[in-house]
């Protein structure tokens, strides 16, 4: 990751409040003031994608199973969601931000970082933020909260804290004091698991985390997590990276019923591998890392990844890596699976290191590309590999997209 050195920076983190719900309300004003939950039908097995503040008051939050949301907030209006409309709104939102600084990094559809260092001609940062909020409201009817800070992580925490429709500015030098009293869960990167571990060590606030001796922290969380301690100290030199290409691509699906049928799990992975492989070939990229995501019936979620020296865009290579990850995960914990996902990342556009067996891979790539051609013309289902037969039987010819 690129780092900026020396000069103090000013970074905005702009985050749209209850984005999906707000878009639904713009499209259908009758939903205003009512508890709204976007994610799917409550009798389905999906999770909450976005909940209005009215629904949040009942304890509903994102990533909660819909059935539970229904129990907590029976009066809520459940919507399946309208992804294409969200993308349209997101584009408008991002276009507005891009007007204020070339140094701009979207993080998903509804949030972005903006490095405004040196853009002083707008007056004070506070005024600039107000201007941006007003323009977003005027042009898209969406509500944004903004955090202003000298680093990305502090800006993000500030915008989160300011919600809804808020604005918090953390001046240079005050990052530590600002973060210190906040609960550790507010730190991006501290999930349920890390939080549990910290709780057991009696670390409840970001300040306590920041004061942990480095050696103890390393011992408990590993050297690779040292950035978390730095972030807790308000230190984050990562740069706002200009709008770049996607860094990964992924697919996932929640099964209708929890399953421990490895045949079905592998068939699903094969289907994902073919979809992801086709995407890679289409964009002339190769990936070095394959990541498997499993959510077990008890909601424990694991990610396992494998990085190879050789990058690939072949369906079969992706699939083989995925199967190895699946087998080793199931060997450790053989339980019913609720959700399975596959991600390819660590892209390279062209290979620097030539391989001994390139001729062999080229042949396989030609086969995959020939299949891509047929599928482009006659549809994905027009040609099928044996591995995915089980899916076809299960979904009677309707392969489901994640």
């Amino acid at each position, binding site marked *: 990751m690129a780092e900026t050195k020396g000069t103090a920076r000013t970074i905005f983190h702009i985050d749209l409040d209850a984005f999906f719900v707000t878009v639904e309300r713009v499209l259908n004003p009758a939903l205003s003031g009512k508890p709204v939950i976007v994610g799917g039908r409550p009798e389905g097995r999906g999770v909450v994608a976005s909940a209005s503040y009215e629904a949040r008051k009942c304890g509903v939050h994102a990533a909660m199973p819909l059935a539970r949301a229904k129990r907590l907030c029976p009066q809520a209006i459940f919507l399946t969601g309208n992804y294409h409309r969200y993308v349209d709104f997101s584009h408008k939102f991002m276009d507005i931000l891009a007007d204020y600084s070339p140094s701009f990094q979207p993080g998903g559809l509804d949030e972005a970082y903006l490095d405004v260092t040196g853009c002083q001609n707008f007056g004070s940062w506070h005024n600039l933020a107000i201007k941006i909020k007003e323009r977003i409201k005027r042009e898209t009817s969406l509500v944004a909260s903004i955090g202003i800070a000298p680093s990305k992580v502090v800006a993000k925490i500030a915008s989160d804290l300011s919600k809804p429709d808020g604005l918090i500015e953390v001046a240079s030098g005050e990052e530590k004091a600002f973060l210190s009293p906040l609960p550790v869960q507010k730190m991006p990167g501290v999930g349920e698991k890390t939080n549990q571990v910290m709780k057991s060590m009696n670390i409840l606030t970001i300040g306590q985390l920041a004061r942990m001796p480095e050696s103890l922290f390393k011992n408990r969380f590993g050297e690779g997590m040292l950035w978390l301690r730095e972030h807790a100290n308000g230190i984050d030199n990562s740069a706002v990276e200009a709008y770049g290409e996607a860094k990964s691509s992924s697919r996932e699906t929640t099964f209708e019923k929890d399953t421990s049928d490895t045949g079905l799990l592998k068939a699903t992975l094969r289907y994902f591998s073919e979809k992801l492989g086709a995407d890679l070939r289409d964009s002339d990229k190769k990936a070095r890392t394959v990541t498997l995501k499993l959510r077990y019936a008890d909601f424990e979620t694991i990610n396992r990844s494998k990085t*190879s*020296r*050789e990058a690939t865009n072949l369906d079969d290579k992706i699939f083989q*890596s995925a199967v190895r990850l699946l087998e080793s995960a199931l060997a450790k914990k053989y339980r019913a699976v609720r959700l399975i996902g596959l991600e390819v990342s660590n892209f390279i556009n062209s290979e620097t*290191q030539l*391989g*001994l067996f390139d001729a062999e891979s080229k042949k396989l790539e030609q086969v995959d590309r020939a299949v891509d051609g047929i599928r482009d013309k006659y549809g994905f289902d027009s040609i099928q590999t044996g591995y995915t037969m089980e899916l076809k039987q299960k979904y009677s010819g309707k392969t489901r997209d994640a």
Partner: protein
Amino acid sequence: MKLSCLQENLNKGLGIIGRAVATRTTLPITQNVLISTDQSQLKLAATNLEIAISSWIGAKIENEGSITVPARIFTEFISSLPNDVISLNLKHHTLEIKCGRYEARINGLDAADFPPIPQVGDGFMTKILEEELKQAISQVAFAAATEESRPVLTGVQTEFEGSKLTLAAADGFRLAVHRSNLIEPVKDKVSMIIPAKAYHELHRLMSEPDQEIEITQNAQKSQVLFKLKNIEMVSQIIQGTFPNYSQLIPQTYGTKARIDVAEFQRAIKMASIFARDGSGIARVIVTPGATVEAGKITISARADEIGDNVGEIDALVDGEAAKIAFNARYLSDVLSVIKQAQVSLEVTTPSNPGVIRPVGVDNYDHVVMPMFVQW
């Protein structure tokens, strides 16, 4: 079981089998070492189910018997004892160790529960001089893949034909092939893929260049036994087909340079300092002179925003000028296992493999795939 032996011998024996002790395992007993009396000797054995190593040491046996004890504790305790007579006495499942004024008791697990050390004996058999095999392993095994994505590439293709033994390994970016001589010719051609890890261990066990090593494959072709003096190692054989490597070795070249190994190594080492930040790219430019002797090679590397370096060495160059880039590590890996003073580097185009061979012998080919760079 009751016996006595010298601390020095027991310590050495434990060192030999130690690397076969399982570390992370689902079968806890494989973290133990099997101690048993075998005729008038003490036999030590360990297995991680991929390889098994047994070692025999001299001992005075009073009562026969066997037990398994945790390898780490036993080994650490034995190694800290003075070089004196150690007596081992098994009482029920507790091994009592006494040496002068020191003693210890270690609770063991029944030897009957230890995974059987495979008996390999009924299949193909041949012999080779340790020196020959050691050299072959050192020049080939390092080129095997460490990633599991293609399991056959984590092994070394091992071929016996006539009186030749050929070892070949490839990891997708380089290929090493070495030919050595067997003591007696074999009747039929036999080939097997032996895990590179097993060869690394075997290499470590070799300490007497003049001794004969017996190599036996079992009838099922699933295991291979290497028999050294007082040491036996059994390894699983990797099932599958090794790629046809001979077609990966270029038969012609456009440029051939003869280079002093030590100088080449120094230049590569310098380039790798600057190449570290990039993808390890060392750029090699071969320039012919007015005569073959007046040729030279430059090796350079650059690190974005930091700097660059260039080194020039003399070479005997036959053919046209050439440019090619390699991962510096692949070059230093191969140069470090070559015993001869000079090597030849053969190249054709910047995107075709380079071949490195020691000058003066005809038993080793090392193919390295180049890197694609903007010059």
